[in-house]
């Protein structure tokens, strides 16, 4: 894969959490009624996951689906497969009221690793990040400082953040500042 796919050329930062720009994340956006049986089945056939419930994620190996709104899902797969999978899904949904587009190059993806990731995210987004309120398996579309972003937790110490590619550098700088080793708050640490 060429580096063209990366907004920041794989930037990374090590502080309270380790922040890395992820390469090779394919993203396919799906608009349509997420409760429509034909759409659910087509997604299952192509991406191997059932569409998640409200504000949840579903993963199966390298593919996954994120709930974005009642009529929007973001489907994840490897970058190289994204166009083929989007075409296949669009073909299966030709008769359904749905729209499928490969948006892999529209966004930047960052991975946050470390036990303090709740604290880092909570500094930037108006979201209750307490372990009782936001758990792995949930996804949240919100803002980070001044731009739209979404994030989800893969496990207790891993989160991924997606934002538009055009604001990738801004979000990376935000995350890096919030994760500065001298900026610990200790609110969520036990």
């Amino acid at each position, binding site marked *: 894969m060429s580096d063209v796919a990366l907004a920041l050329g794989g930037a990374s930062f090590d502080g309270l959490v380790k922040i890395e720009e992820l390469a090779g994340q394919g993203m396919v956006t799906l608009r349509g009624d997420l409760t429509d049986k034909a759409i659910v089945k087509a997604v299952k056939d192509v991406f191997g996951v059932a569409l998640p419930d409200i*504000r949840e994620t579903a993963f199966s190996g390298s593919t996954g689906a994120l709930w*974005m*709104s*009642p009529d929007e899902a973001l489907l994840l797969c490897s970058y190289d497969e994204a166009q083929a999978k989007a075409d296949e899904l669009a073909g299966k949904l030709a008769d359904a009221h749905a729209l499928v587009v490969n948006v892999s190059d529209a966004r930047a993806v960052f991975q946050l690793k470390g036990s303090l990731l709740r604290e880092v995210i909570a500094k930037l987004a*108006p979201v209750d990040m307490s372990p009782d309120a936001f758990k792995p398996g949930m996804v949240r*579309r*919100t803002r980070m400082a001044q731009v*739209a972003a979404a994030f989800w937790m893969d496990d207790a110490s891993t989160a991924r953040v997606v934002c538009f590619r055009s604001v990738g550098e801004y979000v990376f700088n935000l995350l890096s500042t919030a994760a500065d080793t001298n900026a610990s708050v200790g609110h969520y640490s036990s």
Partner: protein
Amino acid sequence: MLLITCPYCGVAAEETELHGGGEAHLKRFGPGSNDDDFTSYLFHRENPKGVHFERWRHVNGCGKWFHAARCTNTLEVFGTYKAQTTEPPKDILDTIRAKRPGFTWRDLA
């Protein structure tokens, strides 16, 4: 701080995640209507101190428009409901009548 629960994604969104869309339940008067109706539709808005019905958009979130009934004085939110309606649902009106006896808003009471 104003916390409004989006009826589409269930998030108790903080004000900066939302965008206000003005007064709710306006009836559009377009081409062919008389000048009084058009003027009223275009310019005349409620500006109450108390119960108000508004449109909001969960702009940094699921992106949906919805309605909210709230008190402009105390920022208490009585309830939110989906956009596809021309009047507030009965349960929200009942809540408001219980909490603000005698309230009026346009032709609602």
